[in-house]
Structures are given as structure tokens and as C-alpha cells.
């Protein structure tokens, strides 16, 4: 199976409360940058689908990672290569010249060239929290989509059973490839991915794998292509643009109560919610 995984680099989500707004614009200076957590999960999913867990060195298929960004995102792509991806593509672009629609249209051009069986991506990137690229791409390609995957089972090389995490439950779909699948948090649980190549009982460690030092060195030799967005689309205009930004209203400081009785009293007489 050949899998394409789009990756976005984001401001460290654990420090998102340090976001500033300077001159009406969101300001992330001083924050570290990391791969979007959902995209790291997508890479891990792609690796699990293309290996026998008993021998993770042999890739049974191909994993290609792609990012839209400046040279700053090269580290992230190299990191994905070091954990096992085969090739990387960087499309040179800055965030303010992109919207989800343009990313999807450009990805479509890459898909047409690369002909993967599966595009596997995060359900949302945690800067914009916009949750749209996978669905847009599926429509532009005329492919089926399975969003918010909490688990994936590959039964045969060309079919997947995807459990989607939906409000109030789980919706199971069977998709015939090629398809677009976006992943949710629980995909990297020990049994989140069941690959036809791996023994059914196998339990992965929770979360994503880390690259060994040797692999980091070796990754430097893996193919790394660069292109421009205009190599992929003739019209790079945006359908949605962002103007000013603001900080949300702060909650006013609360109080600490000493006892359960005091808590109940406050909820009844002060907050009047009981």
C-alpha cells in the first residue's frame, strides 16, 4: 500500500495559552514549533499499516510525507523520514498565502502525480482547528472519505474498515481504496491500527514511535523533493482570508472554598445554579 501523509507544523499546542495578539494579528513568537499532533498520529498510522510489527525495518509499501511551509518545516519532514517514512516533499509556502482549500487543491495535484492508495492525515491542525482539508481533498479527487478515525483495520490491501468517532458513538465504514482517511486521537492506542501484515493480537506501545539516532542519520539520505505551489495549481487565490485577531475574554478570577458545605451554599445562593 502506498500512503501519502500531509503534515503541518504548528506552534507548540501545550503553550497555546502564551499566544499573543500584536497589532491585531496572532503572534506566536517565542513558541516552539512542532508537528501537528494529529499528523504525527497519521504518520504512525501509515507506518503501522505498511509493516509487520515483528519487523518494523522492512516497509511493506511506501509512505510519502508532504508539508506546505518554509524551510522551517524541513526538520519536521526529516523527523518523519527518521521514524520510517520513505520520501518527503516540501511545497514552499507561507501560512498566510494558504487556506484549507488551496492546500487541498495542491494536494490533489500531488496525488495525481504520486497515485497513492490512501491519503492519511490529521482530522485538524491545532492552530486553525479548521477540520476541512481531508474532506475537501476527497471531494476534489472524487474519492470516498472516512473522517475522525479512531481505529482502522486493513482486511485486504485495497479495503479498510474505519471506525469513526462521532458525537455519541462510533460509526463504522468499509472503504475501498483509493480513499482519504483523517485520524483522531485514539488511532495510536495499542490496538488502534490492525494491519493485515501484523498478527492480530499484537499490541503497539501507546502513542507514536521515536526515531533511533542511527535512523536520524540515515534519513538524511532519503529523497527530499521541493516544489512551488504554482507548480501544482494555476490559481493560488484564497477562498477564505483572515483579518484581525483578538484574545478571548478572560474569565474573572474565582475563589477557593474550604468545605463541601460552603461549595453547595455558594452554588445555591451566589451562582444560583442549583
Amino acid at each position, binding site marked *: 500500500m502506498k500512503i501519502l501523509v500531509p503534515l503541518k507544523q504548528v506552534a507548540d*499546542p*501545550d503553550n*497555546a*495559552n502564551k*499566544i499573543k*495578539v500584536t497589532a491585531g494579528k*496572532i503572534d506566536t513568537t517565542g513558541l516552539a514549533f512542532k508537528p501537528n499532533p494529529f499528523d504525527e498520529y497519521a504518520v504512525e498510522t501509515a507506518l503501522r499499516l505498511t509493516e509487520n510489527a515483528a519487523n518494523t525495518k522492512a516497509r511493506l509499501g511506501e509512505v510519502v510525507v508532504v508539508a506546505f511551509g518554509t524551510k522551517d518545516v524541513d526538520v519536521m519532514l526529516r523527523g518523519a523520514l527518521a521514524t520510517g517514512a520513505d520520501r518527503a516533499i516540501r511545497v514552499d509556502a507561507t501560512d498566510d498565502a494558504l487556506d*484549507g482549500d488551496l492546500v487541498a487543491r495542491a494536494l490533489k495535484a500531488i496525488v495525481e502525480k504520486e497515485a497513492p492508495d490512501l491519503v492519511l492525515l490529521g482530522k485538524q491542525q*491545532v*492552530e486553525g*482547528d*479548521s*477540520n*476541512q*482539508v481531508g*474532506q*475537501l481533498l*476527497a*471531494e476534489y479527487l*472524487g*474519492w*470516498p*472519505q472516512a*473522517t475522525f478515525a479512531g481505529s482502522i483495520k486493513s482486511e485486504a490491501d485495497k479495503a479498510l474498515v474505519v471506525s469513526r*468517532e*462521532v*458525537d*455519541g*458513538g*462510533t*460509526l*463504522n*465504514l*468499509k*472503504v475501498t*481504496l483509493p*480513499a482519504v482517511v483523517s485520524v*483522531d*486521537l*485514539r488511532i495510536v492506542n495499542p490496538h488502534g491500527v490492525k494491519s493485515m501484515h501484523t498478527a492480530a493480537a499484537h499490541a503497539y506501545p501507546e502513542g507514536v514511535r521515536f526515531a533511533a539516532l542511527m535512523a536520524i542519520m540515515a534519513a538524511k539520505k532519503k529523497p527530499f523533493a521541493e516544489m512551488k505551489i504554482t507548480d501544482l495549481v494555476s490559481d493560488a487565490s484564497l*477562498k*477564505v*482570508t*483572515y*483579518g*484581525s*485577531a*483578538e*484574545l*478571548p475574554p478572560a*474569565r474573572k478570577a*474565582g475563589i*477557593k472554598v474550604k468545605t*463541601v458545605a460552603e461549595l*453547595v451554599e*455558594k*452554588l445555591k445562593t451566589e*451562582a444560583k*445554579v*442549583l
Partner: protein
Amino acid sequence: MANTLVVAELHDGKVRKATLSSITFARQLGGSFSILVLGAGAAAAASEVTGYGAAKVLVADNTSLKDYVCERFAPTIAAVAADAHAGFDTVVVTASSYGKDLAPRVAAKLNAGYAPDINAVVVDGNRRVYRRAMFAGNAYGNCEVKTAVHVVSVRQTEFPAAEPSGGASAIENVALAPADPAASRVEFVSLEHGKSERPDLGEARVVVSGGRALKEQFAQVLDPLANLLGAAVGASRAACDAGFAPAELQVGQTGRVVAPALYIAIGISGAIQHLAGMKGSKTIVAINKDGDAPIFQVADYGLVADLFTAIPELVSELKRTTA
């Protein structure tokens, strides 16, 4: 003047209450709006939304829409939205897992820009600015859609449910558009629904939410409190991941977004991603044994205590004072 198509969300043959938030959004735009009810059983559900002042209630009722598959639903929505005679300029869905799955695909069909999961709209003549929470709710971005048609999903907690306005909108059947060719490659297998007597998380007046600290006693400790308060039960990601609570209870950036009158966070540390899903609650109570836990920074009332003694005590205190 705006002319908006509100896409109703159905569940078990009934219109989900979240749809009323989309109606509120349509009213805020001004102009007129129609409501599209689609799904198997839509004809019966349509009467639920005829009293809200819609120009028309459009119905697409077909057995092929019994189970939700995007590739079967999106074509009809797009076809209705694109009907030149109706002249819709805006399509709105709720930012539920249903709306989030569907809206981008509809937008792509209409060659429309999509404003996802908005929490406010400012209308200034022909100009519309959509405000949305970004960075796990730590910044608000204001965006504009540059295409003639806009597709929008609205956050239920930020748009109050519309009240009926009286009158009776005319009900009209619309044709089912052919499914996407891709529909032949996706098959609905099953929907597993947690059965619960409790109110839906998105609609409850009180939410009792538990974290990793509850361990295997999650239900044992929280259920008596939730029962007493008629509350929905929520959970942190850590509690869900550990299997203490089912995944669909997760509140947060990537779970449900809730804004009840009262949110009680029990043994939850208050990570950014959790706060993103509950910061909008009217009154927040935090019970945590660590006085420095970040949850206390958003709590109106904080109690530093061991939950395993505090919660049973809270239950008996509530019983005593309300008896």
C-alpha cells in the same frame, strides 16, 4: 439580503436541537432562510421545524439516506443549495461531527469558501466577518469568505437555540441528487451508540466531568452526583484513553464543546485542550487535590480535596439541603 439554506441534522428520526442554533445564525444574517431536512424519515421530522419562520421547509426523504454516508448526503445538499431559482447565498450546518464531516465536501461542490466552527458573525452591509476560536480557544480569528456562496458551520454553544416564531412554513419535497460515484466505494457497516438515559452533553444544563484521577471508579463515583443533578457526564481525554469512560464523553478541543450553566470538573488537571471545550460554561466548579492545578484558573469555585471523599460528601450535602 441574505438567503440562507439551513441544513437540519436528524438523529433517530428527530431533528437535533443543534439545528436550532443554525436557525439563530440564519436569523442573525437577516433576509430569508429555508430549512432542508434530509434523511430517511425526513418527511415526518419536517413538521418539527415549520414554526420558525422559514420561507420553506424542503424535504428529501429516501431510504438510501437511512444511514449517514457523506457521499450520499452531500450531493443533495449541494444541488438544493445551487438551485438557481432558490438563489441561496449561504449554507449552514451545525459544527457537530455530522456537520464537520459534511460541510467541506458541500463547499467543494459549490466552489464555495468554508468558515468552520464559528462562534459569531458580524454583518455590516454586504460584508460579513466570521469570528472563530483558534489555537484551542486561545485566540479568536476573524475571517471573510471571498466566494459568492458561503458555507458555514456554527458552534452550538455560541448560538442559542432559536425560539419558534409562529406561522407554518410550507413543506416542499425536493429531488434526491444521485450519490457521488465514490459512494460505491464506501459502505455503512454500523453505528454503535452509547445508550444513556442522561441528557446529551451538548444540551445539558449541568455537566459533571471526570478525569484520569477517577480510575476504574469513574461511573461509581460520578453517577450518583450526575443522577441527583440530572446532569450529563463528561470526561477528559486521559480518562477516555485509559478506558475509564467511553470516548464519546470526551470534552475538549477535539471532543465535545459544552457550555452548560454549571460544569463540575472532578480530578481534571485543566490542560489547554480540555479548557477549550468547557471554558464557555457559565459557572465552573473544580475539585482537585492539587491546589496548583491549572483548572483552578478558570474555576469560579475551587475545592482542594480528595475527590473520593469530597464527591460522596457533596452528594449527601446536596440531598440534605434539598430535602
